Every structure is written in structure tokens, then in C-alpha cells.
């Protein structure tokens, strides 16, 4: 699903949230759960905490959907919500393991996987390792830009930062990434 279709489907779900909350929430889960868990996993460092954060976000949406229906851009709102919930869970557990995902790096390649897929998986793992080698605050901006496809203004809003800060973090990160990814591009 491309970005435009995704955002349109998201708006449709949220439009139905007050009239048909059960079906709208189910649709919203199918649309966003994987992406939200992926992002939360990069903060929490593990998938169970990310799934707990997802459940907390959906509980809040179900209890009072007025906030997200009033939000101008629902996707950054959801990103910010899951980020806050993940950080709350981490504070509760008193640990910070930003961008140390064990599950994502242990991507098992089965014996029946075709060689092209193996190569793609290997490149993907290398790219993820390069992203993880960045400072966490720079890596977060890169992930929000490239994986979650937010604009710089939306990233600034989601992280509660100024656009200048987001821009400088992105510039520094992309300079390092271009140097590190050069061997993979050739």
C-alpha cells in the first residue's frame, strides 16, 4: 500500500471511530498494528513491550476517540502516542534499550529461501546494523522519515522538537549513512 492510500484508509477508519467503534478499531488495527509495533520495537528493544504499548494506545483510542478525530494528521498522532506509551512502559521497567532490537537482527533465513531473497535479507540486516550504529536520536529521525514516511514537520511534532533540531539530526545521520551504505549500493 502506498503512502497516499495508507493515509486515506487511515482517515476513513478514524472517521468511523465514533459511529462504529468496534469495526473501526479492528480496521485500524489491521492497517497500523505492524508499523506501530515496528516503530515501538526500535524504542523498546523488544516486541513484547512494543505490543503492550500498542494495546495501551488502542485502549486510549477506544475510551476516548475524540482526540484522534480532532487531530489534523492522525498518523503522526498515532506515532507520538505509541512513542509515549513505549517510553512509559520503559520507565516502568527502568531500562532504556533504544534501537537494540534483538528480534529484528535475528531474522532467520530458512533453507528453502531462494538465493535472491537471502541476498536481500543479508543487505537488509546490514542496513539495519548501520542504522543501529547511529546515535539513537539520529536513528529515530531516520526511521521516522524513511520507514514511517513522516514529513519533517510531523517528525518535529511527534518528537516534541523544533524543526531545526530534527533537520540537523537528519543531516548528520544521512551523511554518516551515505558513507556507510556506499559499499552496499555498488
Amino acid at each position: 500500500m502506498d503512502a497516499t492510500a495508507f493515509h486515506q484508509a487511515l482517515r476513513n477508519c478514524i472517521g468511523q471511530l465514533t459511529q462504529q467503534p468496534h469495526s473501526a478499531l479492528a480496521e485500524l488495527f489491521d492497517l497500523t498494528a505492524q508499523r506501530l509495533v515496528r516503530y515501538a520495537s526500535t524504542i523498546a528493544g523488544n516486541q513484547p513491550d512494543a505490543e503492550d504499548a500498542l494495546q495501551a494506545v488502542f485502549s486510549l483510542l477506544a475510551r476516548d476517540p475524540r482526540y484522534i478525530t480532532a487531530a489534523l494528521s492522525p498518523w503522526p498522532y498515532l506515532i507520538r502516542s505509541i512513542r509515549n506509551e513505549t517510553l512509559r512502559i520503559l520507565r516502568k521497567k527502568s531500562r532504556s534499550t533504544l534501537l537494540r532490537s534483538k528480534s529484528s537482527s535475528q531474522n532467520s533465513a530458512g533453507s528453502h529461501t531462494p538465493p535472491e531473497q537471502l541476498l536481500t535479507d543479508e543487505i537488509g540486516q546490514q542496513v539495519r546494523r548501520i542504522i543501529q550504529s547511529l546515535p539513537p536520536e539520529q536513528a529515530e529521525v531516520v526511521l521516522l522519515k524513511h520507514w514511517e514516511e513522516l514529513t519533517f514537520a510531523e517528525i518535529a511534532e511527534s518528537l516534541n522538537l523544533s524543526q531545526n533540531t530534527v533537520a540537523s539530526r537528519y543531516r548528520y545521520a544521512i551523511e554518516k549513512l551515505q558513507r556507510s551504505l556506499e559499499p552496499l549500493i555498488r
Partner: protein
Amino acid sequence: MNSDFLRIPEPSGPETQLLRSAAPLPTLSPELRQRVLTGCGRQIVVGKAIRASQQLAAVAASVAVLCWLFLPGRIEERSHPETSGAPADTLLQAPGLPPGTSLGLPAPPGTSLGNIAATDAAQSTPAAPPKPPTAQPPQPPVPLQP
């Protein structure tokens, strides 16, 4: 920091494709969907109850305020205000003015001072009985000096 700094080109090029292709979509736990939607069902009920109680509280508060404002005893109290023994026009009387004059406002043409005092008292407390005329007779109008 100038505005050129914010003019960041949208990501493009081979490294962008690499970064986007490296985004893994995780496989969610099999029971997660059921767990989340069950929790949502409970929260929908809780949210409706909270909103209903908030609306009920708002209505109850409005009714309480209206009752307090329009209670029969309070209406009577407002129509018969208990003063501290002084007549209503005495309270409004300014020093240096003859009795029955209200705060030095000019009298409408053709009205005597006694009528003004009675009119003021009647306007402020409609149900109050008219005041008896003051002891001093009304003074004759002083002719204007050329």
C-alpha cells in the same frame, strides 16, 4: 540558523531505496489482535460510562444552579429585601441634597422632588408601599437670575 538550513531535499537516491527496503514488518503475536480488540470493547463501555456520568453531572449542576436562583423563598426575598431599618430613598440620598433627592440626578421637567423619591422607591422595590410625604413641604421653585 537561517531558513536555508530547513530546506532539506526530500530523500531520494539509492540509499533511500536501501533504507526503505530494510524496514522489516514484524510478525505480530497470534493472540495480539484478539487481546487488543477485547480490551478495546471494555474501554468503549468504560468511555461511554464516563462520558454519560460527565453529562449527568453537568446537567445536575445546571439544575442545582437554576433551583438556587429561582427558589420561591429566594424570589420573595428578592421582592422584599430586608434593609437595615433605613428607608430605601434614604440610602440613596447624597449629602447636601434635600431629602428625597436621588444622587443629584436632574429631575424630569414637571416632576416634583417628592414624586422623584416615590418613583425611585417604586422602581427599586416594586412591592414596597409608597413612602409618606416628608415633614418639610416642597420648596417653591427659585426663579432664575438674569
